[in-house]
């Protein structure tokens, strides 16, 4: 379709009635009754819809309650779908055009309210000589309300021009009339953007992805603090969502930020006093520990349909008691998590950690790498971890015990985190290296996660038996599932050697060496 909706701002001092009169002098239209419209804009915590250049609103008006999806980048009409309950997860919505579009974008995240725009809307239908509607004009008086931040206020009144397919010439003519005769200024932003700005919100202000802009000459202890501050921000941003269990990604992101914090503490070596590093390593390990059981249950339940799909159809229903068992434990485990995240120990950890990270670095430091340039420290750490990955990877044979693969995976993760922490120092090439490493990590993850799942299934089978009343068929189905998981693990193991060989190929080795070579030796090996 070659038409788009256009919006115009009505200047202060001109009322909607004035605009209507001006239009009436020029074209014939029918007025629909004035409608009170409430638009509750929604997005995930990590702005998935915004990043996909889309908006979603729960719209309440005379026509009822609907979801309205708009693709801002595409020249397509909005998608709409009636609903009768507040939207949350995509899978809870009734099937329909909005759900179809939303599901792949939202994934496993929950829709959260951004803010509300309340409008008094007068709809004018511009008619041709057959009394056919050829253009729709909406005159909107808008206000926003951000309940979370307790803010509200007026927004600019707008004239929205809605095309009717097949009547492009009428649309163009009306647009001309609005800008030339009525001298209205086209709106540069959607009403949502205007409302977000008025509420002091910045779209895309949360992402679990790391995005540092470090200076290679900066002192390494200052850079390390910057990295760790970013991780603490992420960790803190996810606490309330994890406590409320809005969706499983809050806890996941909190745990990833914790893991990265531990990794940064140990891998950016010699920038802080060793006693301090030891202390916080232990305390963040505790955070990992208290959040583990809930994450395990989340993973189990999120993957449950996948587990069932691995079994022959006749065995699938036999796994349902396992789902019920896990669901029964869920509330208790979540309660324990909420307690731990509300504990003095946890709060004290974050307060003291923030105080340390926000304190300026000492003018002089005797710690080995503290005052060295960040780039030199990063080069050395990445080189060293890369060597460890290669050495451990080359030692893997088809008969290597599982812990050796697990150890390799841990080295790879540390290397990946280092690359991500310092990526701004190596602007161009690092994306390809992370991608390559991710492929290797995916393979090792498949292997290790399967091992963990098998252990969990065994433990859970025991717990179910201890609790009494577990059916033999359920235990058999769990046994069959363990068998399938072992097959899956074996496939990952078979694939390992080719994936590692690719990672360790000569051209790749040269890229790694060149990119992270010490300052004076760069370019010598290329």
């Amino acid at each position, binding site marked *: *379709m070659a038409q788009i909706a256009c919006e115009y701002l009505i200047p202060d001092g001109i009322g909607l009635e004035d605009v209507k009169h001006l239009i009436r002098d020029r074209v014939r239209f029918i007025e629909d009754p004035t409608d009170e419209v409430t638009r509750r804009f929604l997005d995930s915590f990590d702005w998935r819809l915004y990043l996909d250049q889309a908006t979603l609103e729960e719209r309440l008006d005379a*026509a009822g309650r*609907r*979801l309205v999806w708009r693709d801002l980048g595409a020249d*397509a*009409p909005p*998608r*709409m*779908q*009636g609903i009768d309950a507040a939207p949350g997860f995509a899978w809870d919505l009734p099937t*329909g*055009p*909005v759900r179809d579009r939303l599901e792949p974008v939202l994934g496993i995240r929950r829709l959260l309210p951004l803010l509300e725009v309340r409008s008094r809307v007068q709809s004018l*239908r511009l008619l041709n000589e*057959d*009394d*056919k*509607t050829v253009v729709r004009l909406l005159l909107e008086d808008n206000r926003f309300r951000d309940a979370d931040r307790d803010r509200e206020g007026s927004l600019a009144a707008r004239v929205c021009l809605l*095309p*009717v*397919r*097949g*009547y492009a010439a009428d649309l163009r003519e009306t647009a001309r009339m609005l800008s030339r005769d009525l001298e209205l200024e086209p709106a540069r932003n959607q009403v949502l953007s205007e409302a977000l700005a008025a509420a002091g919100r910045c779209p895309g202000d949360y992402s679990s992805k790391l995005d540092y802009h470090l200076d290679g000459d900066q002192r390494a202890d200052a850079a390390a603090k910057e990295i760790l501050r970013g991780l603490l921000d992420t960790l803190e941003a996810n606490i309330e969502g994890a406590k409320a269990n809005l969706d499983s990604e809050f806890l996941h992101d909190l745990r990833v930020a914790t893991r990265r914090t531990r990794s940064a503490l140990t891998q950016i070596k010699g920038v802080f006093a060793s006693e301090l590093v030891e202390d916080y390593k232990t305390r963040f390990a505790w955070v990992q520990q208290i959040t583990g059981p809930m994450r395990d249950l989340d993973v189990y339940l999120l993957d449950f349909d996948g587990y069932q799909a691995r079994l022959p159809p006749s065995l699938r229903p036999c796994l349902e008691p396992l789902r019920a068992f896990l669901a029964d434990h869920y509330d208790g485990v979540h309660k324990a998590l909420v307690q731990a995240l509300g504990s003095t120990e946890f709060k004290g950890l974050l307060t003291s950690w923030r105080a340390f990270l926000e304190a300026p670095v000492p003018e002089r430091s005797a710690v080995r790498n503290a005052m060295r340039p960040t780039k030199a420290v990063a080069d050395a750490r990445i080189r060293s971890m890369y060597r460890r990955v290669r050495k451990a990877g080359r030692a893997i044979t088809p008969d290597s015990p599982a812990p050796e693969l697990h150890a390799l995976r841990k080295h790879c993760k540390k290397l990946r985190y280092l690359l991500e922490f310092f990526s701004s120092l190596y602007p161009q090439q690092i994306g390809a290296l992370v991608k390559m490493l991710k492929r290797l990590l995916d393979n090792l993850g498949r292997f290790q996660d399967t091992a963990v799942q098998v252990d969990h299934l065994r433990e859970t089978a025991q717990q179910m038996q201890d609790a009494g009343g577990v059916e033999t068929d359920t235990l058999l189905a769990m046994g069959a599932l363990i068998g399938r998981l072992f097959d899956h693990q074996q496939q990952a193991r078979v694939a390992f050697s080719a994936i590692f060989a690719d990672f360790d190929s000569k051209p790749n080795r040269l890229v790694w060496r060149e990119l992270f070579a010490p300052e004076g030796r760069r370019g010598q090996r290329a």
Partner: protein
Amino acid sequence: MKVIGVYNIKGGVGKTATAVNIAYLAAEEGNRTLVWDLDPQAAATYYFRVRPKVKGGGKALVRDKRALDTVVKGTDFENLDLLPADFSFRNLDLVLEDAKQSTKRLSRLLKPLAEDYDYIFLDCPPSISLVSENIFRAADAILVPMIPTTLSARTLDQLLAFLGEHGQLRALRVLPLFTMVDRRKRLHLDIIERLAGDYPDLLATRIPDASDVERMGIHRQPLPAYAPSSAAARAYRALWDEIKTKLLAG
């Protein structure tokens, strides 16, 4: 995208009213909906106040000279578009006959619209012809409105026999329904009762013979738009719900 043909060999049985009203209801629910008025009489086009004109006529569409989405017109209702009729559609059989793979032409033409629409309703001309065969191939289901008369069963049998003779059409979902039902007429009730036993896919909803439906031509709007709580509008709502259930059940 689901394509639903509204078809009967006979004319004057309420095909257009059925197509227009259930398309309106589908769109009202938020589904992106298109009505293709294939009948040169252009009744659906008239109801939506659109001029019955397609540049280049049916020939341009069938021969891919003009893509379907370039001739679509928005109606007065959100989510509801119309592909208008053109008087040249009276010769569509001849044009199709000249085309390659003449029985699958419509199906091919509709394919690019799959991304744009959730439902496409084909308001079909009466008769059994190459156009009908194209519709049968393009559609996921065919609604067959019938007035409860003795001839109804005969025309339905003719249609089923035709589909039975064509291997690829045997699986087509055929959903007959009664329209213009006058509950005061003993004959109507008798025929409905008799056919209900013979055709398991016969839809339970009956559209009453109501002057509200006839007034569509005066209002030039779908019935639920101007008389949403009339008995006939309620019947169309029930019909649409029943069709969705049947389609979902596969």
